[in-house]
C-alpha cells in the first residue's frame, strides 16, 4: 500500500527556534493535513490544505504556524518560534479527495521536543 512519509522521525529544538517538519504525501493525493498529539492526549486537527491554499485551520494553528507545498511532492509544516507546549507528535496525512467519504492515510509522525 502507498505510504505517507515524514521526516525527521524525531526533532529536538530549543524554545524560540524555528522548525520545519516535512512530509511526502501519497503521489496522486490532492488534500493534505497536519494533526498533532500531545503525549497522552487526543489527536488534534491543525490544518487542511488543497490547491495550494489552506482549506481549514484550527484554533491551535495560529500565526506561528504555516504550511507550504514547495514542490510537487513535499508538504511542510513550519513553526516559527517554538514554545514548550508545541512538544508533541505531529502527523501528516493525505487523501485523494476531500469529500469526507474516505480514510486518511497518515505518516508515522515526527516527535517534536522543545527544550
Amino acid at each position: 500500500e502507498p505510504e505517507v512519509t515524514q521526516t525527521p522521525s524525531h526533532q529536538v529544538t530549543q524554545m524560540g527556534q524555528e522548525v520545519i517538519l516535512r512530509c511526502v504525501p501519497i503521489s496522486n493525493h490532492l488534500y493534505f493535513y497536519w494533526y498533532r498529539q500531545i503525549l497522552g492526549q487526543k489527536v488534534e486537527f491543525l490544518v487542511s490544505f488543497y490547491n495550494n491554499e489552506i482549506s481549514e485551520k484550527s484554533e491551535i494553528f495560529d500565526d506561528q504556524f504555516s504550511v507550504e507545498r514547495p514542490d510537487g511532492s513535499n508538504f511542510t509544516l513550519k513553526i516559527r518560534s517554538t514554545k514548550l507546549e508545541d512538544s508533541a507528535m505531529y502527523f501528516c496525512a493525505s487523501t485523494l479527495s476531500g469529500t469526507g467519504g474516505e480514510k486518511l492515510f497518515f505518516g508515522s509522525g515526527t516527535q517534536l521536543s522543545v527544550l
Partner: protein
Amino acid sequence: SQQGEEDPQALSIQEGENATMNCSYKTSINNLQWYRQNSGRGLVHLILIRSNEREKHSGRLRVTLDTSKKSSSLLITASRAADTASYFCATATHTGTASKLTFGTGTRLQVTL
C-alpha cells in the same frame, strides 16, 4: 462529553477473548472511522462506516453505528497479543473543500497471553 469519547479508557483481556470499545459523538457526521495506534507510532486506519450504514465487517473487526444515539462500537473478535494498541474513533465532517477528522480520547487495549 466531548466529540468522540471512547469507553472504556482502558481494557485488559486475554488472548482469544473479544474486545468491545464504544465511542460517542455530538455533532452530525459524514462517516466514522476507527484507527489503531501502537505505542509511539503512527495511526493506522482500520475501518470506515458511513452515516447511512449500521454495521460493517472487516476480518475480525465489526463496527456498528447508531446515528440516533450518536454512538459507535468496535468489536475485535478472537483477540491476539498483537492487537495490543490504542484504538481511536474519529468522526469525519466535510468542511470547506476538505474533510476533517475529530478524534476521540482512545481506548488502550492490552491483550495478554
